[in-house]
């Protein structure tokens, strides 16, 4: 017998959680961005698992769209991060406290 889909979903859930904790805990903007990528990857794993369970390729098609959105997001996000770095000489998110008080 093959591995049950539940195990894949458990793995995806744990990876998504690690992504969330990483975004909350880490301070470097680029590292935070990589944890967002980790969360997207976990969601991709869920899509593929559900595609297998339903016996169709629809979930795999959705992975494509997630991939395209992730690529566009990375390009725009990294441009914004490098722009912030050019202004503030730091990629630390705590350095961006312009609206504080």
């Amino acid at each position: 017998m093959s591995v049950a889909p539940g195990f894949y979903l458990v793995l995806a859930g744990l990876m998504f959680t690690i992504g969330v904790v990483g975004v909350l805990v880490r301070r470097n903007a680029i590292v935070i961005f990589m944890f967002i990528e980790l969360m997207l990857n976990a969601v991709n794993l869920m899509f593929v698992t559900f595609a297998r369970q339903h016996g169709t390729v629809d979930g795999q098609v959705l992975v494509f769209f997630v991939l395209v959105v992730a690529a566009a997001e990375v390009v725009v996000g990294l441009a914004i991060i490098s722009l912030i770095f050019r202004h503030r000489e730091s990629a630390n998110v705590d350095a961006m406290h312009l609206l504080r008080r």
Partner: protein
Amino acid sequence: MNLEILVFGAMFVMALGCSLAMLFAPNAVHVALFLVGAQVALALAFLLQGAFFVAAVQIIVYAGAIMVLFLFVIMLLGVDVRQALVEPLTGQRGIAILLGALLAVGLVFVAIQGVQLAAGGADGAGALTELNRDPGNVIGLARALFSRYLLPFEVTSILLVVAIVGVMVLARRLGAVESEGQVQAPTEEEAA
């Protein structure tokens, strides 16, 4: 059959280990490399579940192109190894880990309990294997993409164009027009 469980176990350990290592690696380059490891492990998971084309795309686009872009920007901005020792919000890390544990428990519970409800208890693995054999994984994917998902596919192209234009606007230096004027000025003097 037993081999599949063995490969799944190795993949599980690699994916989870790389993800956890991402949390604790201080260096941004190491975080990027661990993310590549996690993505390769996920590609293995896609292969195990009969998503052959998606596994290849995962390696080529994610572990290849996107991570190279990440490493490029890390190198461009300079590797910052200094850890922020002072927490701007006291107790933020503890609360984050607590809420993360809560989320993990919730997601795992839903994964175990809800997986039977999701497909009405039916396992379509046999159907997908049949689909992968008869028209083939790539052909089946292309048929779905260019028939039922044609409109989202076209909207995706708009998204990419918007992203390209946005990045060009962002990456343009604000002083570029003025510096061009400065470059032009001496040439006019030379002409005179």
